[in-house]
């Protein structure tokens, strides 16, 4: 075998190993989750587990419905807070901001992405929670606090992805619009934003994925009562919070139930990921 052929083979094996690592990791996680989670779910009973509204491990009652609802509420709240701010910021950065402003704003957004979630949690405890307690109602540890905090946390994801989508819109669309006498604002909002629609949707879906999986910051501000909240000022427990709070001391079926919670979370994230690819594909077809 010649030298170059050996080199080529070595390179190929290296690439295959590298690629295999991530595939293997996903496969192992799946196997671990399902092997440990499914039997527990079966023991508890799938309907009782998914739709039971009482979570009382000490009495052997494992219903995670409040946590599923909690995760959905918190994520929806984060979208309500984060999507308008994020998308508008992306539009601003892509089409309105001058060099000086984006030179300040862009690193700011990148920094936001790099802050550890526990630091966000501190910010929530020190600023958002007291603000709600003093100016609104309740203890402050609430669905609202978690939603606002998560809304801020998903901003960098949404801004970056949506801005890339807007930047990728061909210049000729913009020129065509202003050549018809459209103002800059109208060209941006009525031609460029619709043209970047699938990319902006992808940004939102990625934000959702980030929000639903976030744990630490949520645990710190959400109150974590395993009950379906009656209002945005009530505490809420998400699936992620459920796992991280009890995993340390759980054993036997309790432990299995927590892993099964992870299975449900995994399914949610997988659906979001599928949605993301579907949107991306649709964008490419157009």
């Amino acid at each position: 075998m010649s030298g170059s052929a050996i080199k080529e083979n070595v390179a190929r094996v290296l690439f295959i190993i590298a690629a295999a690592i991530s595939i293997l990791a996903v496969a192992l996680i799946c196997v671990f989750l399902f092997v440990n989670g499914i039997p527990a779910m079966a023991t508890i009973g799938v309907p009782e587990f998914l739709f039971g509204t009482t979570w009382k491990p000490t009495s052997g009652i494992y219903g995670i419905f409040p946590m599923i609802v909690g995760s959905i509420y918190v994520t929806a709240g984060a979208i309500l807070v984060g999507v308008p701010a994020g998308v508008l910021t992306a539009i601003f950065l892509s089409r309105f901001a001058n060099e000086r402003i984006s030179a300040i704003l862009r690193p700011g957004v990148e920094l936001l992405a790099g802050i550890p979630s526990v630091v966000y949690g501190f910010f929530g405890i020190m600023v958002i929670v007291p603000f709600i307690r003093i100016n609104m109602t309740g203890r402050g540890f609430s669905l609202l606090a978690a939603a606002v905090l998560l809304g801020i946390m998903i901003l960098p994801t949404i801004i970056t992805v949506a801005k890339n989508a807007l930047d990728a819109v061909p210049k000729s669309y913009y020129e065509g619009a202003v050549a018809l006498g459209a103002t800059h604002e109208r060209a941006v909002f009525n031609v460029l934003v619709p043209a970047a629609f699938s990319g902006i949707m992808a940004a939102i879906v990625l934000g959702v994925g980030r929000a639903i999986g976030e744990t630490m910051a949520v645990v710190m501000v959400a109150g974590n009562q395993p009950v379906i909240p009656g209002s945005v000022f009530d505490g809420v427990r998400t699936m992620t919070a459920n796992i991280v709070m009890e995993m340390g001391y759980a054993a036997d079926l309790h432990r299995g139930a927590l892993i099964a919670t992870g299975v449900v979370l995994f399914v949610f994230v997988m659906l979001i990921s599928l949605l993301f690819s579907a949107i991306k594909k649709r964008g490419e077809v157009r």
Partner: protein
Amino acid sequence: MEAVEEKMVTPTFIRGAEAHRGEEVQTKMEVRNLDLHYGNFHALKDVTLVFPENEVTALIGPSGCGKSTLLKTLNRMNDLVDGCKVTGAIELDGKDAYKDIDVNDLRRRVGMVFQQPNPFPMSIYDNIAFGPRTHGIKKKDELDVIVEQSLRDAAIWDEVKDRLKKSALGLSGGQQQRLCIARALAVRPEVLLLDESTSALDPISTAKIEELVGQLASKYTVIMVTHNMLQAIRVSTKTAFFLLGEMVEAGDTDTLFTHPQDSRTADYVSGRFG
């Protein structure tokens, strides 16, 4: 010499010339002592030129001669270019395009069709309705009338009338370009700028658009940039020849191609350079 022979047998040209014989010609747009710089590059040098109403004026010249630059100055699309500086006067109906007319109003009155077809990624209907909606027309029945009329004027109505709600990106290149002409017509412009609008198209689509431009001249003042001298002869009644940012010669298309005054024009139209 080929160019001259072509002219002699092209009926479009003769028809165009006859149509204007004996009529008083109104000036629609006028450029006086126009200088344009892109940064340090002097792209247009002291250009003075008149565009008569309801005629087709062709701007010809080799690549980089400034003809497209001049076109983009007429509707101030050059404003979008960083470091572009314009001095001199550009007038539409005697009013200064840079001082007396709002830029968006100018661009409504002076429509533009680009080199590459650039329909928006939306339905055919919404493409045409975009301009009128921009200028405040919201009623559906009014828009319906404008959309149909514009598509008819651009000679594409019959091809798209059954698929108005379909995406404009599904049309062929030639259809897209005629759609872009319709889109420009929908805002009721007075002047239509064509920036090498057939250079990306096949010969059949090109012929359709050339025929269309001939018809449009009865309602609009048309100014077209073209690389193709035969096209200038076929379609235009006036021609201006540009070289290295200077306007060398302008006049009736007929005269300019048969009896050019300047030796540089003679060299160019006989194909000796460019």
